[in-house]
Structure formats: structure tokens, C-alpha cells
């Protein structure tokens, strides 16, 4: 093969994939949107910052350091392209926009490992577009990369393991965490314990965060239904329903989110076959145990192919690389491949426990008021979605988008797609898998027209 294999994403999956390829004498290209490798979870601070990894990553410090060290050791053996956004693919050519040089280049690949990671799963609440409201992931980026907090008195709201982790990180960093409001009930968490006990260390960490927060006077409330974020110019408080009555708290910032959603646009443009995955409540690109997608020479690793967490991402990245190598005719250790598959399979049980501990709030769409903005780019409200359905009979996402512009703005549905699908499903009385998914179109993220002109004819 003339072209090198390419890995998109330098998080836990991408770095472990690169490591396995290098170990077998193959030099991959590693393209990453971020300035430094590590992904979202092990995002590295800018080089001039000097906080300890214990401060930045808490319990994950060991894993973060291990991944960073692996990457640093690999650095000379991979064609590393940081600050680079893959915005399109056609055939075996990726289009890659390099931020600092403001140029876009075409990069050919022989084989491709897609390790594109995840973003927050957002379910809007009235007031969510006020300044001072961040996703949980955004709140974490502010802390890890920018060394600042989203506010002085912060409420964290939503559900999922990240809710407690970010609250803990904020409190440790000296921010005042006013409260953690979880839509899951403690009964859910207790019921999930047996399934989660397959990963005792992870379970203990979660319990530790909760215990620590409580011990430090942070109010933790389960079984809530967020009602609104209030404020005029910016956030001044939150209101939620606790099952019997509405309650309020003053705060100046809100971090919220409902676990994560996979970034699947590249897999979509590559033509990977998708299927609905009930455990993830999402349409995801299919892959086999060896992480081969439905498209020859395309492999899927990490949270971009279903949210399984950082440890799973490392195993999947390595497994994908072994499959890629085998497909190139390179001899690989079959027992290692099998061990990785076994570890990944074991994690599936834990993952279902997590879903039980932090269930998706299925009643969200039913409670979303008509005036709630679902698509902030195009200012499309829940009421507009419902009216469109009533008037047109639309029962599918792409049709709904065509008729009312939901998902047509800058985010192309990456932020609003989940919520819009929930509203559509609820108001047509269908299970959410039946409303389909927004078709992916290039560019994966908006691209400046001028850069394309400036870069014409450029080759790597």
C-alpha cells in the first residue's frame, strides 16, 4: 500500500491505536482537532500551565499520565497533525483544515481508524441559552485547559457519571458548588449496583465523589426535573421540581448534560452502515468485535462508536489497530486481540448498569414547554416542532428539518439533534428509533470559504 494508515482523533482510542501500529513497524498519520493529544477526558493543559496531573485529573491522574507518556514516546514515530479538523471525506481522501496555518489539505489514507470521540448529550431546559450556562464537558474544558471556572457559585444539573466528576473537580479547584441536581433517583443507582460491581474500582470512584461532595456540604438532590435556568443578562438561579414541589436556588453558572453522545459524522460520510443501539439510545455505526466497520479498511474505536468510556476506548483503539494490521497482512498476537475483545465484552454489562444508574429522562420531551428553544442556531422551539408535525404529518427527522429548519444551523444538529428527535418521537407517539437520524453532509463543522480558495492545489 502506498499511503499510510490514518487515525482520526488523538484521545485514548487514537493514541492506543497509534501505539499498536508503531509497535508493529507501521507509521500512521494521527490527525487531531485539539492542540495537544489526550482527547477530551485526558485533555492536556497548555504547555505554559503548571498544574499537577493530580489536580487536573484526580483519580484519573495515573491513566492520564500513562496515555500522555505513551503519546510522547510515540511522537517521533507518527505523522502527528494537531489543530487539524477533518471536515470531509471522498473515496480515500480526507479534507483536513489546519487551524494555525489556515490551510486545508487533502490527505490520502490506505486504512482509517475513526476515533472521533463524543460530546455532551444536551436536553435543553428553559433558559439554557443564557450566558453562564455550559455543558458539563464545556465546564470541564474551562477548568482543564483554560484554568478557569464557569462561575463562582455553580449548579450542576442533568445526569450521568460526569455530573459528579465535574462537580468534584470544580469543588476541588476552589469553586463553590451550590448543588448537584440529578434527574436519576438514588433508587436507580441502588438497583444498578449488581451490574456495576463488575468494575468495582470505577464504582468506588463514583461513590467517593458523591461522598466527598456531601462531606463538603454540597447539596445533592436526586429525582429532580429541571424546570428553568433564570436570569436576565446572565444566570441568576435555577428552578427544579423535586417530585412534590418546585424549588429554586441562586447561582451564577450552570453546568448541565445528560451523559454523552457519539460524534458519528465522519463514519457517516465514510458510508458506514448505522443501526439503532437501544443501550445508547442512538443510531450508531456498526462494527464487529474486532472494530471493523461495514466499510472495508475503515475501523471504529472509542466513544465515537458508542459511549463506553476511556478505558474501553484504549482497548478498542488497540483492537482496531490489530485488525487493521491483520488486514494489511501483518502478523499480530491473536491472544492479545482476543483478550481485548473479552475485556470490551465484559464492560458491556457494566455499561448497562450505568444506564440503569443514570437513566435517560424519558419524560423530558413530555415536559418540554412549547416556548423552549430546542435548536439555538435557528431558534426553533419545541412548539414549532410540534406545530410542524401537526400541520405536515412529519414523522421523520430529515423531513422535520426540511420543514422547520431544526438542525440547519452552525451545529448541523450535533447539539440539538437528540432533543429534536425526542420531541418528534413524543409528539408522534413513536419510539425514538423510528424517527431516524439526520443525514450527515460535509462539512463536518463549518469551514471558511476563503481558506478553501487560499489552499487550492495544496498537497500534504
Amino acid at each position: 500500500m502506498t499511503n499510510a494508515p490514518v487515525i482520526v482523533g488523538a484521545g485514548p482510542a487514537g493514541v492506543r491505536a497509534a501505539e499498536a501500529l508503531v509497535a508493529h513497524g507501521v507509521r500512521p498519520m494521527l490527525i487531531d482537532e485539539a492542540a495537544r493529544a489526550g482527547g477530551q477526558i485526558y485533555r492536556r493543559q497548555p504547555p505554559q500551565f503548571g498544574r499537577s496531573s493530580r489536580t487536573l485529573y484526580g483519580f484519573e491522574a495515573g491513566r492520564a499520565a500513562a496515555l500522555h507518556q505513551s503519546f510522547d514516546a510515540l511522537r517521533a514515530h507518527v505523522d502527528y497533525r494537531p489543530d487539524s479538523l477533518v471536515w470531509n471525506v471522498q473515496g480515500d481522501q480526507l479534507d483536513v483544515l489546519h487551524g494555525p496555518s489556515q490551510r486545508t489539505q487533502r490527505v490520502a489514507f490506505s486504512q482509517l481508524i475513526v476515533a472521533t470521540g463524543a460530546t455532551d448529550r444536551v436536553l435543553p431546559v428553559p433558559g439554557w441559552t443564557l450566558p453562564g450556562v455550559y455543558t458539563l464537558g464545556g465546564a470541564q474544558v474551562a477548568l482543564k485547559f483554560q484554568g478557569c471556572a464557569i462561575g463562582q457559585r455553580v449548579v450542576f444539573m442533568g445526569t450521568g457519571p460526569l455530573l459528579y466528576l465535574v462537580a468534584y473537580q470544580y469543588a476541588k479547584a476552589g469553586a463553590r458548588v451550590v448543588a448537584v441536581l440529578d434527574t436519576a433517583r438514588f433508587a436507580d443507582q441502588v438497583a444498578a449496583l449488581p451490574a456495576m460491581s463488575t468494575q468495582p474500582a470505577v464504582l468506588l470512584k463514583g461513590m467517593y465523589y458523591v461522598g466527598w461532595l456531601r462531606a463538603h456540604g454540597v447539596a445533592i438532590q436526586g429525582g429532580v426535573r429541571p424546570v428553568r435556568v433564570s436570569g436576565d443578562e446572565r444566570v441568576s438561579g435555577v428552578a427544579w421540581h423535586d417530585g412534590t414541589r418546585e424549588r429554586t436556588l441562586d447561582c451564577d453558572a450552570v453546568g448541565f448534560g445528560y451523559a454523552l453522545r457519539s460524534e458519528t459524522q465522519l463514519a457517516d460520510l465514510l458510508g458506514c452502515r448505522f443501526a439503532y443501539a437501544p443501550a445508547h439510545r442512538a443510531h450508531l455505526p456498526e462494527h464487529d468485535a474486532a472494530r471493523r466497520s461495514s466499510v472495508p479498511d475503515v475501523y471504529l474505536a472509542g466513544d465515537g462508536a458508542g459511549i463506553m468510556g476511556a478505558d474501553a476506548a484504549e482497548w478498542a483503539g488497540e483492537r482496531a489497530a490489530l485488525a487493521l494490521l491483520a488486514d494489511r497482512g501483518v502478523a499480530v498476537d491473536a491472544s492479545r486481540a482476543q483478550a481485548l475483545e473479552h475485556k470490551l465484552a465484559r464492560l458491556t454489562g457494566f455499561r448497562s448498569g450505568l444506564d440503569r444508574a443514570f437513566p435517560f429522562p424519558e419524560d423530558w420531551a413530555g415536559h418540554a414547554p412549547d416556548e423552549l428553544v430546542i435548536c439555538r442556531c435557528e431558534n426553533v422551539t419545541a412548539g414549532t416542532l410540534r406545530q410542524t408535525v401537526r400541520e405536515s404529518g412529519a414523522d421523520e427527522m430529515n423531513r422535520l428539518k426540511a420543514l422547520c429548519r431544526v438542525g440547519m444551523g452552525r451545529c448541523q444538529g450535533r447539539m440539538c439533534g437528540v432533543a429534536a428527535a425526542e420531541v418528534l418521537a413524543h409528539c408522534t407517539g413513536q419510539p425514538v428509533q423510528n424517527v431516524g437520524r439526520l443525514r450527515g453532509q460535509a462539512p463536518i463543522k463549518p469551514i471558511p470559504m476563503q481558506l478553501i480558495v487560499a489552499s487550492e492545489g495544496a498537497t500534504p
Partner: protein
Amino acid sequence: MTQRIDCDVAIVGGGIVGASAALALRRMGQQVVLLERDLCGSRSSGVNFGGVRRQGRPLSQLPLAQRAHRIWGELPALLGTDGEYVRSGHFKIARSEADLAALERYRELSRDFDLGLDMITGAALRARAGWLGAKALGGSFCPEDGQANPRLVSPAFARAAERAGAQVFERTPLDEAEHDGQRFLLRSTAAALEVRAPVLLNCAGAWAGPLAAQFGDAVPLRSGHPAMAVTEPLPAFMDWSLGVEGGGIYCRQVARGNVVMGGGAGYEIDEVRARVERGAIDGWCRQAIELLPALRHAHILRTWSGTEGYLPDRQPVLGPSRSMPGLFHGFGFAGAGFQIGPAAGEVLAELACHGRTVTPIDAFAADRFDRAAASPPPASLATSVTH
């Protein structure tokens, strides 16, 4: 349990042609059943550029285009929505003296059709359209041409037909068609539906070929794929819809502020889906920034393509079957069917009811390819489309 329906006219294809035919037939009192494989107006009729333009069409299409122009003017009354249709004016840009001469020639040739074309050049152009880049020497302006939102208009024709009493079956692919000597029999296994009608309208767009061929009207229909993109919303700066003499790009700014542009070609992913060719993106960006400097800092949010039916002479097939009485075709609009679609629908309705139409359609006869020896289609079908 298969549902069986007898009706006067059966229509295959719920694009703008089929749906407007259904609406026109209902207004003529006919019982109509329309079968659409997917959702009405979800293919080319719904994802095209949205130009509503007579200027630049072959003279043979202008009677149809003029008829359509009247229908577009009554859109709210007809459909209950304006579909964002505005008579913004369409300006066809000349980038050379030769382009200007060609546009002047077209103005002369089309004089009988009362398009109101006006050549604008030099200082007058700068005064009227200061947002145009220096590459635009001048051009031809058609004040009553315009633009509309195809995502809204094309499905709205189907909904209007339905409200008027047409039976519209979506997600109903046609599996089998036959004629028993008196009536057409159409079957959709997936929808467990059988439709019988003495008259059949084939409005299946790029997929119309097999049905036409089955009844003796084999035509050299090919699929072509346009390439289009939309920018983020920008402050309003351009009120005209733009084309370029000799092809290249076309663009318009919608009320929301996004600039929609097209030009170049897409490529097929499968029978129903297509995507923009990478080279087309370079083409738009270079040409669009030259012609519209305001786009210099704009971001492209999305690109898309579609699947359109092309015949070698880039004219549609519109009219009766040469061999099967009761069968009429309306397809192959070569990427330029949005404006004339509603008129094509009315013509088909007239043909279905009366066997004739007041609009000249001789240039679109299904048998015209028998007369000329079949010539190979152009290498790139979509590149010279002028929207």
C-alpha cells in the same frame, strides 16, 4: 389485506410535477391516486437550488415557463403557503464581452415572451448592485423571476392535492405495473395496495425510465447530480437571484440570511443518494468570492446533492406515450424543473382529461430520440446547468 382502489388517474411520483398534476386534476373533478416511493417532495423537487427562473431557458420551454409564472404568482391561494417565494429578480452575470453579446442575443430571441429582460452594465450596475465583484461586467436582469424554498413548496403541492381530495400514498414504492387492455394496474407490495385507473401519469423523475420503457417508450434517461451549499446566515446584502452566463455558479440569499449556492457536480452514493464532488467546493468558493466579495469571511455550513433525470438534449419528456393510450409522461427536467414543474403538472392534467393541452409541448415528445440517432450523453451532465 390488500387495499384496492379504482380511480380516474393514477400518478407515479410525488415530486412537484406529480403533486401539481394531482392538484390540477382534483380541481378538474377527477379521482386521483398518487403513489410516492418515499415522501412527497423529498427528492430533487425538495432539495434543488430553489431558483424560480424563466430567463435562460430554451425558447421551446418558455410557453411552459410563462404558464408556470402565473401559477407561482398564485401560490398562497393555491397552496396556503407562499413557500418563501419572492419575485426578487434574476440576474444573469456576464464576465466578458462575449457573455454580454450572448445575453443580448437571448434577449432578442425571447422578446415575444415578454420576460422584461433588461441589460445592466457599467455604472448602472455598480449603482444598483454594489455588492457584485469587479469580475461581473454586466448582465441581463429579469425583474419577475425569483426564488422559493423547495423544501417547503414541493411538499406543499402534495398536501394541497391531498386537501383537495387526492389520495396520496407515501412510502409506497411501485413494484408492478401492467395494463389489462382497459386499465392500468399498479401494485405496491410494501404498502399492500393495488390501484386501477384508465390513465397513468409517469412523474417518477430520475427513476421514470423503467416504467416508460415497459410501455414502449424507452428513452435515454440518465441520472445527474447537482452540487449545492449553504453558508451561515449573513446580513442581507443581495436581493437578486444570480446565475452566470455559460454556467459556473448560481446563488441567492434567503430571507434568513444564508447564501445558497450551486455549481459543479455531485456523485452517486446509491440509487437514491448523492453527495457533492470535492472539486465542486473549490469551484464555488473561488467563483463566489470573486462575484460576491461579501462571502470572503463566510463559512459553509452544509453541502448537498440530489438525483435528477437528464435526457441528451436536456429537455424533459412531457406528453403522451407513443404506444400506450392513456399513459402520459412528465420527467427528465435536467435539473431545471422546479420553476416549470407546476405548469408541467397542469399540462399533464389537461392531457389526462382532454387528451390535449393549450401549451406547446412538441419539443418534449417521447419519440424524439428515435428520429435522431442516439448520441452519447455529455461527459458531465450537471456542470453546465444554469439555475
